[in-house]
């Protein structure tokens, strides 16, 4: 399997995702430069964390205009797997590939710490190896992670089961105290209606190895690989 990692100017988790894909999972990985207009041979596109274009405007607001985004859009429309982590989630929502918006944290400060996430559904390529209701511990690192969408969109998201991850406490309860940024309904990650595009604020790329004291993030990457292999076998 080959991961394609988009490098925007200001991306700073591109190397982290590359490391996980190549050295932890043992799969292929390539960087996709934001000025390129096409790519080929990629099975999963990852939009990594960072501060694309400095995030001086709204996070992701300029990155959506990078030439590569047209190709990412087309790839997603063909059913390709697209995974936006942190800043990548912000870019995907600005680009309209995912619903809602990420606003400034309720505490008005950048926050870097572990949080707990409840997995809301298993039937996505990104959670295929994680049972619904599982509580994962992942770190966040963001200043603009407060998920917002109008009430009618939120309703639609719930109906279509597009909320994939919610902030929760260690016991899996979604509470105000366990929400690091004030996201509505504790939303930490959403997918598109088709389920092939996922945005997630916490960083599975920062906790995919035991040496870092936590390998739970690897379960998302393992899921991606599993789903991809399953799909490939079905094609054959």
């Amino acid at each position, binding site marked *: 399997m080959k991961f394609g990692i988009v490098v925007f*100017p*200001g991306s700073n988790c591109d190397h*982290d995702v590359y490391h996980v894909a190549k050295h932890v999972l043992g799969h292929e990985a390539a960087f996709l430069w934001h000025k390129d207009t096409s790519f080929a041979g990629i099975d999963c596109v990852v939009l990594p964390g960072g*501060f694309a274009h400095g995030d001086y405007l709204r996070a992701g607001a300029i990155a959506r205009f990078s030439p590569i985004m047209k190709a990412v859009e087309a790839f997603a429309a063909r059913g390709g797997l697209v995974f936006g982590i942190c800043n990548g989630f912000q870019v995907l929502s600005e680009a309209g590939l995912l619903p809602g918006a990420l606003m400034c944290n309720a505490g008005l400060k*950048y926050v870097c710490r572990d949080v707990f996430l409840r997995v809301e559904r298993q039937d996505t390529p990104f959670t295929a190896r994680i049972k619904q209701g599982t509580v994962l511990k992942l770190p966040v*690192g963001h200043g603009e992670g407060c998920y917002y969408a109008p009430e009618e969109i939120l309703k639609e998201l719930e109906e279509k089961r597009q909320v994939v991850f919610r902030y929760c406490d260690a016991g899996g309860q979604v509470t105000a105290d366990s929400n690091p940024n004030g996201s509505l309904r504790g939303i930490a990650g959403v997918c598109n209606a088709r389920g092939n595009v996922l945005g997630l604020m916490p*960083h599975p790329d920062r906790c*995919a190895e035991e040496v*870092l004291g936590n390998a739970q993030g690897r379960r998302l990457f393992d899921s991606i690989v599993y789903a991809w292999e399953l799909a490939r076998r079905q094609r054959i």
Partner: protein
Amino acid sequence: MTSEPQVTRELALAHGMTAEEYDRAVAALGRTPSYTELGIFSVMWSEHCSYKSSRIHLKRLPTEGPRLIQGPGENAGVVEIGDGIVAVFKMESHNHPSYVEPYQGAATGVGGILRDIFTMGARPIASLNSLRFGSLDHPRTRYLVGGVVSGIAGYGNSIGVPTVGGEIYFHPSYNGNILVNVFSLGIARRDKIHRGTAGGPGNPVIYVGSKTGRDGIHGASLLASSEFDAASETKRPTVQVGDPFTEKLLLEACLEVMKSPGVVVGIQDMGAAGLTCSTVEMAARAGTGMEIDLDRVPLREEGMTPYEIMLSESQERMLLVATPQTERRVREVFEKWDLDASIIGRVTDTGRVRVTSRGQVVADTPARALVDDAPRYKRPSARPPWQDGLAEPAPGSIKDISNGTKALVALSTSLNLCSREEVYTEYDHMVRSNTVVRPGSDAAIIRLKGTRYALALTVDCNARHCYLDPMEGARLAVAEAARNLACAGAVPLGTTDCLNFGNPEKPEVMWQFEQSIDGIAAACRALDTPIVGGNVSFYNETEGKGIHPTPTIAMVGFLVDVKGAITQWFKREGDLVFLLGDAHGSLGGSEYLALLHQRESGRPQGVDLERERALHDLVRGARDTGLVASAHDCSEGGLAFALLECCITGPQGAVGAEIKLEGKGRLDELLFGEAPTRVIVSAPAECRARLEQMAHTASVPVSLIGRAGGPRLSITAGGGTVVDLELAPARTAWRAALAGHLKG
């Protein structure tokens, strides 16, 4: 050319030069300097750039070691790790700018130290900082804390270099002069190290990065090299404005262009004194000269004079020397990253830096004269008459305590000892996915991808100790840093220091400085941790009042195998708790005396460096044989506070302990007395005999003081319970205290 001011002796004085320094400049040139030249001499010979008051003393620091590849004198120091990998690191101060404009001052401090690292061809992978603020009742303190922390976060988070550790202390001596010391470390291949030399006459000199504006003019010479007074607010325009996004592009572009060998001949960042310092230093190091055409410098605004262009401290700029064959490659890479790359001149063999603007020569000065012939001062020094009065030993007039629980709670929720979580969660301390031990243990640990190696990082200084006894205080700071590394399981590789002092023209400040240098030198020699570089910050005074002497020590340690990493908190119920080292500390200079009795007096207990070293070897040796579950240095707050930290600092929640201390004498001294050369270790019960035997062989005192487990910390001494604390609420209070203090 627009009419420039007539250069006179008075104008030189207004530039912060002395009359003698001006005469020296005239002699070096053989004529009266032009206005631009006066600007160049004044910054190059400023305290900040020339180290004129400190250089003769800095020579006494040990700057050699078997692993040392580059010592002081370059943009950063370089130390061998293994397998052809080197660590590149340095610490610098950004004190004055951060007081005047805290957000931008701190942000550009981070930006500056990062440039020092990647200029050398290394990718920065971790930062630390050491911060000192005034007391909370000072009207500016909360504003300064908020601004500095946000500035560090704003820059470091955006550029993607994790801030993995640091320290923050509050003391009234910093009311008018906060300290912002920033450290960064990068990793490079040994054969890819680049230096700031302008070799090869005829080679193109290329300006890369941001455009030049009017910001930061005289930041180094006037802001950093003089005391503050009531008019310091007017110096706000001398503080630069940071742009981490541009620096991120500059970082990637520089590393990309330096990847292929031979493309870059030399490279230096434009930090203090901007274009002036980079051209002069690069030429001086190579023994060459340079011709610079200011018309080719990318400018942010129109109408800038040669003087302003040469002195601007606009951020995110580099000066690079390529070859005629490689200049195209340089341009291509910088174009890819949307950055300016402009050939502004050539290397020459004249030994002079010659600057032209609109066809006219505006400066023509010998390069070496500006660097090597800069003034050197052996300033008078004298032990201050009040120093002896501080040593008053006996806390005899203070009533001893019969129970320590209340005092322990007070210490653990105090401004200086409570958890720093409120601050470090605002720093991205995990980006680059190398952080094995996060902020909150004795040292941070980062792994090196593609190897089994790891590095431990710490920064330390107890300025109260330095105030009470500058030489011993400096020795203690080095010893504590090395002990923190040992408690992380690491061997010191090297040290970088930030020497923060008052006005060096005062004999007592100079005495403090000299004493500190000798203390650092002795301890670094004894503990095998050479100084690889650093910085001196004088004039930390406001209206005649100086700071506590604060020689901040940052130390980098090495772990052959990341699996050998140790953290400070108790791990398992039932593990035995040992004290390695002497049970007894001293109340002299202790946090207990300062916090609960408002006294800063007495002598800090001195350190026997040989015994200190034996202790560190023992901790690492015991780790190697699997005997150590946790190790924690005992510093501020003494034995009782260190034990509490072992119980409550773990990320998984509290692990209690039952402790029995032997000791006669005062109870407050037993619990809260401070001493170096002490480590609390926990280990599985079956390891006892082996650990005790290793300690005996190493001649390190060892005592079994208790057992980990349960929800409480209880300490008995002399047959009675002297501390009994329920840990869950204690941990919550310790974690929440800083936010509470800062909210006010």
